[in-house]
Structure formats: structure tokens, C-alpha cells
């Protein structure tokens, strides 16, 4: 039940807006996360944005995981 999905903000309008995830557009409330901008990735839970995805952090983790995967492929 505590599922929250990363979704990209495509419209912001006075506390509400639209996000896109996997091609589906959904209405969202920004009441718990104001100051969101179009293009941000947010964690969407039950119609509310709960947190901004820290993209720099996410990219860094993805880079590390890619290195790990590469090391694995080289060993195999």
C-alpha cells in the first residue's frame, strides 16, 4: 500500500497539476510538496506528490550500478 511511483511533472497550476508515468497522464495534488516545477520527477502516492526525486543522486546511483553490472559481465 505504500507504493509510490516516480512520475514526471508536466503541468503545475495552483497546488495541483498533471504528471506522466509510463505514458499515462494523471492528476496530482502538490499540497504536500509545493514549489514543484515542470520537468521535475516526483514520487506519486495516492494522488499526491510526496517528494522530489533527487535526480543528481539517482544518476550517481545508476552510474555506480552500471559499473557493478559491467564488472559482472566482465567476470562472466
Amino acid at each position: 500500500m505504500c507504493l509510490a511511483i516516480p512520475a514526471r511533472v508536466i503541468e503545475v497550476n495552483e497546488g495541483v497539476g498533471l504528471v506522466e508515468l509510463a505514458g499515462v497522464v494523471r492528476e496530482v495534488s502538490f499540497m504536500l510538496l509545493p514549489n514543484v516545477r515542470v520537468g521535475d520527477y516526483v514520487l506519486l502516492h495516492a494522488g499526491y506528490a510526496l517528494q522530489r526525486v533527487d535526480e543528481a543522486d539517482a544518476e550517481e546511483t545508476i552510474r555506480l550500478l552500471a559499473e557493478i553490472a559491467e564488472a559482472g559481465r566482465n567476470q562472466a
Partner: protein
Amino acid sequence: MTMRYVQEFRDGAAAQVLAHRIERASSRPVNLMEVCGTHTVSIFRHGVRGLLPPPVNLLSGPGCPVCVTTNADIDKAIALAGQNGVTLATFGDMMKVPGSYQSLQQAKADGADVRVVYSARDSVRLARDNSQRSLIFFAVGFETTAPTIAAALLEAEQLGLTNFYIFSVHKLVPPAMIALLESREVRIDGFICPGHVSVVIGSQPYEPIARRYGVPCVISGFEPLDVLQGIEMLLRQIGEGRSEVEIQYSRGVRPEGNPLARELMYRVFEERDADWRGLGCIPGSGLKLRPQYRAFDAEEAFAVKPPPTKEHRGCLCGDVLRGVITPPQCPLFAKACTPEKPIGPCMVSSEGTCAGWYQYGSSS
């Protein structure tokens, strides 16, 4: 269509390397508890158990909100739904969970006006568009969900709605983790802490668990590589004799959490003692509306007397929720109790531990 920040955390080659690292880091047998039901589902779905060396045992905890909701609370929701002029709305996960005598889904089939909503905001809309009916939102969920209910209530207040009510069975996760440690029924060597609860509460509430009880905590994300990395971090702590709160899921969880979400949650709710299925009454582990929001409190507005509660005979859901047994140890599992004919909530909910074992157990 690929999903950004999801797909990248499912790479098979990286999973194999992380599994090797876990094997190298593991020495003595350890019990790691994943507290959250969403973790339980992810661990099963992605076959994480199958990647772990035998000394690393994963226990599922009490982190499925509908599973820990007591029969008494479900019975009360059904009684509320049966009142004249009442529409009861709730999240889909709650519908099939059996109370003492029936589920909300059965009550609906018998004529009660029960609606499934995706968001608490939808229930505010239902109240606004049906002003002649009373709309009760049956509010279930942990710290992830409670702020969204608080926000919806504040919206209903702003709209001046007088037909919107909340029946809150919200629960808080850290008190349940401490209750498990206090009971000493199961040895827990490390907690995989719930990622999305922590998006709201941050890392601080787990500090007493790490410091006072000496149990390492790692807040993990939900993709398989997140979980594997979280397990590796826990094993490192155990190996080095540390017990700290660490954040693996740093792309979503800040140490301070989401202070605004917490502020709204505590503006509307205050803590109360709450009954958990399997764990009994845990002090300060529930949320009820503050006195100034009494007008929205379904328990105040509607005097219902549900019939005496009764437990599901032979069902060991409570022991499963405490990590004392695994589902196959329950005599009903996969025999009298299946997802098609569930007896207890842990087999009903998609996040239930029994449902996970039933669907994926033999393959992982």
C-alpha cells in the same frame, strides 16, 4: 514503455554482482526483517530470496496496513457503511479483507454503498457532488498515506463540506518495530526500513532502534537492486559491529523526511494507542483526529454497534505478521486458505506475506 528511475534498478548483471558481494559479506546466520509489504512483494516478484546465500534469512514484518487492521475495525467500517444515507469510500486493498463476518466487498454486494477510490481527494469530490449523503472515508495506511488524508480533510474543510467524515485506523511503523523487539519472540539482526514511510518521517525515528536496541537499520528503495544493496549495507554494519541508520534510497529519502507532510499530518491527527492484528495494543501507534476536527470524525458522528468480533478459526496471520512463522507453517496455508478462498488478510492482500508465498514461494 520504460519507466525512468525504475528500469535502471532492475539490471540482472548488477544483481548477480551484488549477490556475490552479499555472499562475501555474510558470515554467521542472520535474520533481516523487511518491515514493509511493498518490499515483501518486490522481494518475491524479483526472486531476491533466490539470490541470497543460506545464512541470510529474510523475515516479513507487520508492514501491510490492511493486514494489520483488526477484525473489530473492519466490522466497524461495515457497520458505518450500513447506516442510512452513508457512502463509505476506501482504498481498493481494503475491500476483500474479511472482518468477523464479512468483507466490505460482501457488504457492498448486500446493498451497502461502498466505493473504491484511488485517492482521498476522490472521496472529497464524492462528498461535494453528493451533498445529500454522508461520505465516510475509511482511512487506512501508514505514515506514507496519513498526510494525504490530512491534506484531503483540510481541502474538505476549505470547501465548507459538512458531509465528509473520516474513520481513521492509521498506524505508525516505528512503534510496531519497537514492539517486535520488546517481545523478543524473534531474533532480528537488521531492519530493511520502509522506503516510502521514510520519505515522510526521515531517518530520525529509527535512531532509538539502532542505538538503544543495537539493531542496524537501512532505509531501502523497492526495486531489486535497491533491496540487494540495502541487504549488503546491513551485512556490512553487522560485520563491522555497527548499528546505525543508513539510507540506501537516497534519491527519495532525505534525512529530515518531508516536514510539511508531517506538519499537516500532526495538524489534523494526534497519536493514540492502537490495536494491531497479531501484535495487540501498541501505545502511541495509531492516529486519531484532533479534537478541533471532531466534526469530521465518523466515530463521533455515527454511533454504531457492530456485532461481537470473532477471529478466523485456525488462521495464524498474527504469527506471520510478527515473523514468528513463515506461511507454509500454517496448517491452513494453500489448503483451506488460498487467494481464491482466503481465510486471513495475509492471503487476501496483494501485499500479504501469505499471498506472496503462495504465488512465488516454490520458485524462490
